[in-house]
């Protein structure tokens, strides 16, 4: 583990977020198996330290763009938990009024410019948010999350070149979880060190252990601080592993149980928990209590979602346009 957080509250806050994401996602797995969640669900289990560590350096008015695997990013950036849960249920109380669903959660009031069902679509959108900040002469920052599979999309290239040319305040965080759906990164990607992609744009690039929360905090802190003071974009590659299937229900024939078990030894949540205990920053009981209170939050969110109504069908055309209503 790298440098500590400066104060205890920050440590606790990080732990809460890590565990909240984990608990939220595990609950979704159950709910999905029970047939309560429509559509498909991609969980963030195993990657929590990335979203939490990066977003620890962000302000509410900073922006993030996210992916199909977006719950973790949204929670880390502060989305309302009830609104998130209700959205995944497709209820009218959902953050997107049930129109988005798991793959399209967003909270613009928190700078969350949307999970996105199109791989690497967020890269060019992030570039635009960066441009907007620069034009408005603000000191906000954009973090663009995308995957090791997404790195081969043309949009990544166009976005990185542009952000570099214009020196925009955009930090590209590539979550290298080794797979894109059912395909190993090695089959489809020309370099094994993904940070090599930065030099092509004259962009600083750095790799980090994405399962080590404090390393994530430290590395992204520098990238974000640089962006904030006008030093332009950075590519940050976060090495990690997806503990679950690509989606809930994925039989995972493409990888061995041993490989998964091996990776679970470096569970980002346990790593941080151990750190807190070893450093004497928390004891097991306190953490246990904290977890229980978080599980309650998740219970409440589920209850909220379950008790909420579906949108009324006559509202189906609402929100297509700002001003046109169907006759």
């Amino acid at each position, binding site marked *: 583990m790298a440098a500590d957080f400066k104060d205890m509250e920050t440590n606790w806050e990080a732990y809460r977020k890590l565990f909240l994401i984990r608990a939220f996602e595990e609950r979704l797995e159950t709910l999905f198996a029970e047939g309560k969640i429509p559509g498909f669900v991609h969980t963030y289990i195993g990657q929590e330290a990335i979203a939490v560590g990066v977003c620890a350096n962000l302000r509410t008015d900073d922006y993030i763009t996210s992916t199909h695997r977006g719950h973790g990013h949204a929670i880390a950036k502060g989305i309302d938990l009830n609104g998130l849960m209700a959205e995944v249920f497709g209820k009218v109380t959902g953050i997107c009024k049930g129109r988005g669903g798991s793959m399209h959660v967003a909270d613009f009031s928190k700078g969350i410019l949307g999970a996105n069902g199109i791989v690497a679509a967020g890269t060019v959108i992030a570039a635009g948010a960066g441009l907007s900040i620069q034009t408005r002469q603000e000191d906000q920052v954009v973090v663009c999350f995308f995957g090791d599979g997404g790195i081969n999309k043309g949009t990544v290239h166009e976005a990185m070149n542009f952000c570099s040319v214009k020196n925009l305040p955009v930090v590209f965080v590539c979550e290298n979880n080794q797979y894109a759906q059912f395909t190993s990164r090695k089959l489809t990607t020309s370099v094994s060190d993904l940070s090599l992609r930065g030099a092509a744009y004259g962009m600083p690039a750095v790799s980090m252990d994405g399962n080590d929360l404090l390393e994530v905090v430290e590395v992204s802190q520098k990238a974000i601080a640089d962006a904030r003071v006008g030093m332009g974009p950075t590519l940050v590659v976060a090495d990690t592993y997806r503990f679950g299937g690509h989606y809930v229900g994925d039989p995972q024939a493409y990888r061995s149980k041993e490989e998964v078990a091996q990776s679970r030894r470096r569970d980002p949540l346990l790593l941080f928990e151990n750190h807190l205990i070893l450093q004497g920053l928390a004891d097991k009981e306190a953490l246990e209590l904290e977890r229980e209170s978080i599980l309650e939050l998740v219970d409440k969110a589920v209850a909220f979602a379950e008790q909420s109504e579906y949108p009324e*069908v006559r509202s189906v055309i609402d929100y297509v346009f700002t001003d046109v209503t169907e006759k």
Partner: protein
Amino acid sequence: MRSISFGQATVEATAAAMREDETVVVAGEDIGWGGNFGQFKGLLEEFGPKRVLDMPISEALILGSAVGAAVTGLRPVASLSFVEFTMGAMDEIINQAAKFRYMFGGQVSVPMVVRASDGVLRSSGAQHSESFEAFFSHMPGLKVVAPSNPADAKGLLRSAIADDDPVIYLENKKITFRKGEVPEGDYRIALGEASVARSGSDVSLITYSVMAQHALEAAQVLFEEHSVEAEVVDLRTLVPLDIESVLTSVAKTRRAVICHEAWTFGGFGAEISSQINEHLFGELAAPVVRVGARSAPIPFSPPLERELVPEASEVVEAVLRTVKL
């Protein structure tokens, strides 16, 4: 005859084409593992990674390289698991594949198939639920195929792969797992021929893809509950369009209801409606009606999704309105 799923039928057609012609290759994301809907099961094992290519998430490359391969001796079948991903490769479809033969004066043909799953399936959301056949069928140089049942899927895909022109082959997600009787062996259906899936004299349901199934259900309900005899014309191929079969049916019934899952506004149904009206002016007993989705992105929430896109009940209602006239 044995009954197999739509997905199995497409595997069968692909494997048969690959066995017969070694220039046929299949390329797409995650297809080695069988594909999102099992449409590629067993192909990697039988044909190996040189002919079953797991591609990077690079849709422009997947379709653009198919064009390059097609004009240099291969017959690529390029697969995108959701039709929305074609949007990242529209230049390759619209500006390249469709135009190469014409703008190069007939020097080459472009024998490639673009396969994509389309349509609404249980809350897949706004970016994984759409039907874009109207885009492709407007572009000269592309053939467009949209089968509604396993037998047609097998026969049409086989013809699509053998075809010398670029073919957009659209597999509806909702019916991928449905079973039906499918002939064994080398079964082909010529592109450009509609089928009369059910005969009737009161109204013509002009349709394709998943809505052909809904139209058949609707026809059954109409017959049993309303004594209305609906004829179902399953277009199967949108380009080239078998307008003769459409006109023959509508000339007989004097009433037409066009059904597709895509948005009604600007949808392919508008082309069919226009042509019926142009050709059968004064001979119709009721206005041609279109049944399709209302104009909004596809919502996630189940009741909204069900409200937006039509199924059999909407077809029944539309027919009842029409036959009353």
